[in-house]
């Protein structure tokens, strides 16, 4: 039912928008002739557009509230997306998996080198997202300095190679290990912190690492970075640039699969349950006999491990790194991947990474509006799908005893 009230509210919103956009949309100073142009037509268009938008927006809201009221609170069907429902049915599941496998293996043959490169970047972000998912999604510790571990991974490969000639395959676990160490290093002082305080300290940590890399010339070669990092080798076979890229692509696929496997196992393990308890309620978590300190430190260390390995791959992919690649902006993007995709959900994080990394590449034409679209998408998502694109469904512990009802 459309009430007069609704129209009135939308009208007020449109007036407010006309007022807000007045300086940029209506006034134009012509500097050549030194006169001011008044584009009143724009104002009317803005008014109409915002009126319609506001009207639809309100309608959507009302429907959302109505839908919420009809639902029985004891059922949580709402949390399962259409995608997951389709996946649940066997008749779609197997063909879907087979098709996905074919697509993934055939990808380098079907698409150009440019596309493969973008896909490798997206896969690195999938790995980073899954790592951060452990810290933010499972353990509920808001980490805004995640990029620091990524940087530690990348620089450990670059520096270890520069000084000791260590190859990619040795650097991969070493980078992960070093990052884990840094994770614990960060974890110790923030054991007592949570929420906003934790976020600020991790933010500072990320910046500290970046500033050290930028200013400690003797150690990290400062802003000029480190070049000539070798690409991953394959039993010493010489490869062309294309061969290297395709090889890296398959390598990345394997690593992502490995990450998914490990994160999935972790999620359903004892330590995974401890993380979930920590996220839900710290006091109750302690009352259950869970070691809070150990749980937090393992979350930081394991999350950082994936970032470190991602960093090693990043260094190997670009063959050149400098501190400019590890700004706070990267942390935000990775965090957005986790939040947009669905906190705690592996499928969600993968889709989040694909959307946030691939879409900007393919929508280069709209690159001016990228931030704007990004913001709008996030706001809309948080209102209509607060759980993310594909929310987490925890494995249900099947109850085999006699049902009491």
């Amino acid at each position, binding site marked *: 039912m459309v009430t007069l009230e609704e129209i009135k509210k939308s009208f007020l919103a449109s007036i407010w928008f006309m007022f807000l956009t007045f300086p940029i949309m209506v006034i134009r100073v012509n500097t050549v002739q030194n006169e001011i142009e008044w584009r009143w037509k724009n104002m009317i268009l803005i008014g109409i557009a915002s009126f319609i938008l506001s009207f639809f927006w309100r309608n959507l809201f009302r429907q959302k509230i109505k839908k919420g009221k009809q639902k029985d*609170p*004891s059922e949580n069907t709402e949390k399962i997306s259409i995608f997951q429902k389709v996946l649940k049915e066997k008749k779609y599941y197997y063909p879907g998996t087979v098709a996905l496998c074919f697509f993934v293996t055939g990808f380098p043959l079907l698409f150009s080198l440019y596309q493969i490169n973008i896909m490798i970047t997206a896969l690195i972000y999938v790995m980073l997202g899954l790592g951060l998912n452990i810290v933010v999604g499972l353990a509920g510790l808001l980490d805004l300095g995640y990029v620091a571990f990524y940087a530690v991974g990348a620089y450990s490969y670059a520096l270890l190679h520069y000084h000791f000639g260590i190859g990619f395959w040795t650097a991969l676990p070493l980078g992960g290990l070093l990052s884990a160490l840094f994770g614990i290093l960060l974890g110790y002082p923030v054991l007592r912190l949570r929420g906003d305080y934790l976020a600020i300290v991790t933010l500072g940590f990320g910046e500290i690492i970046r500033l050290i890399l930028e200013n400690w010339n003797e150690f990290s070669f400062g802003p000029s970075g480190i070049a000539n990092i070798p690409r991953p080798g394959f039993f010493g076979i010489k490869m062309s640039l294309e061969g290297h890229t395709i090889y890296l692509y398959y390598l990345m696929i394997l690593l992502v699969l490995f990450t998914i496997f490990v994160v999935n196992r972790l999620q359903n393990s004892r330590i995974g349950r401890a993380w979930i308890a920590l996220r839900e*309620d710290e006091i109750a978590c302690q009352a259950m006999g869970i070691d809070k300190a150990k749980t937090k430190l393992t979350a930081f260390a394991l999350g950082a491990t994936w970032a470190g390995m991602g960093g090693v791959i990043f260094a190997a992919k670009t063959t050149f790194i400098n501190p400019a690649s590890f700004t706070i902006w990267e942390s935000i993007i990775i965090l957005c991947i986790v939040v947009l995709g669905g906190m705690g959900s592996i499928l969600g994080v993968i889709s989040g990474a694909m959307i946030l990394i691939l879409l900007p590449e393919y929508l280069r034409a709209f690159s001016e509006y990228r931030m704007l679209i990004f913001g709008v998408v996030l706001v809309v998502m948080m209102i209509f799908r607060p759980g993310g694109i594909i929310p987490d469904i925890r494995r249900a*512990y099947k109850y085999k005893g006699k049902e*009491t009802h």
Partner: protein
Amino acid sequence: MLKLIDVQTHYGKIQALRDINIEIHQGEIITLIGANGAGKSTTLMTTCGIVPPSSGDILFNGKSIVHMNPNKIVAMGISQVPEGRHIFPYLSVKENLDMGAFLRDDTVQIRKDMDHIFEMFPILAERQHQQGGTLSGGEQQMLAISRALMAKPKLLLLDEPSLGLAPIIVRQIFDIIKKVNQENNTTIFLVEQNANLALKVADRGYVMENGRITLTDSAGNLLANDDVRKAYLGI
């Protein structure tokens, strides 16, 4: 079973507990009553290791548990139901109970215990797939107690189970406490504001004032004590 000897606890410079001496025997229900800010909750927190004492000793079955990590203390068989319930709001009732059995490995026995809990609290069985946060206050309290029981504690610490509940629900909760004590032979240390009901279910009681134990006696005697009646029962 549990013995607090001259325990003192400080929050920074503020002294919350002064020379606390409490002794609890196997199979008893002991209650600690007192006004707001008397130090009742601090006594519990100190016992389960969350707020370490600054001096004194706490013995559990003859072993000192002072300066042990809270998780180690839980592993020894002391479970607590924290003040304000603190259930896991986004986990289902069953997952909440499962968290209670976090330190246990005997899957089969855990199942049986869960069955037993569901028999004792049919309402929880009915709502086992519902999120903990959607339960009513009384149901949440039942869940919190059940969750603590899933750890198979030797000693159960209850912090204000009547907090924010309607009188009829409070009575139910106290019946449950009595039942848990009798059926499982679980020793219970109950911290309560509702002195009247607490003293009715308890065997013995301690009265606390400004961080000190001022009075201790059998529950019956305390109920009859004029000072206690005036101060805590409002009669």
